């Protein structure tokens, strides 16, 4: 039995769904940030799986660029968490309702 692209796609979808569930249901900003990072990282898996099938380097180049985007997103997110904690002493999302309509 061979490992096919479908194996990696199903795994990528499961990991993306777990990250989405964490991003929606958790209240701690840090865990939400980690969940978003998990979603982005699972997309790397899908890119690499398709790159292996099509024998194109474009998938791997996109993976390198997405890795940079993950770093940027998480760095700014961590700075936001620290800033929010400094201002209000809390990292719970429910404590921030400035833009609530």
């Amino acid at each position, binding site marked *: 039995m061979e490992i096919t692209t479908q194996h990696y796609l199903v795994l990528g979808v499961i990991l993306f769904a777990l990250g989405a569930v*964490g991003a929606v249901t958790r209240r701690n900003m840090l865990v939400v940030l980690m969940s978003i990072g998990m979603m982005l990282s699972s997309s790397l898996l899908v890119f690499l799986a398709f790159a292996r099938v099509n024998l194109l*380097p474009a998938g791997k180049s996109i993976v390198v660029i997405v890795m940079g985007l993950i770093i940027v997103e998480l760095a700014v997110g961590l700075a936001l968490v620290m800033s929010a904690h400094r201002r209000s002493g809390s990292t719970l999302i429910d404590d921030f309702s400035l833009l609530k309509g």
Partner: protein
Amino acid sequence: MIVLFYIVATISIFSATAVITRMRPFTSVCWLGLFYLSLSILCAMLSAPLVAILHLIVSISLIAAFILVAMTLSGIGEGRTRVMHFGMILGAAAAGYLVIVLVLAIIRSPITETPLVGLSFESPVRSAIALMNEYAMPFAALGFLILTSVLAITALLDDPRAEELK
């Protein structure tokens, strides 16, 4: 190979579930490290050892930053004694297993020198050539994004009390 895939996939799903179900952020960060490690192995299994190494380096720096922030916010390391739970021992054992598998996968993976016709990311030289030629535009855009993020972080973490201290 398929057995290894299922083992690594199970570890990655289990660690991802632990990240979103643990109550303490510091524990979630530890499980996130295991998740990133398993993803690096999956990258190596997809015939991309260089991407696996890059992912490992990136994830180590991210986990270090997360651990620092989690320790700062939750006050861990202030003299309180921690008990090793069964889940932490299990996670540490899984991480050790994944490290051994990753090292073996990278050592045994043939990083062949492909001809210069076409593009390949299988060696650092080919990666540099591809990023500086064919993918120069997104690579430059990424550098601009990183610069912008550094400026944003500097602005966000600017302490208003610094002026008063001066």
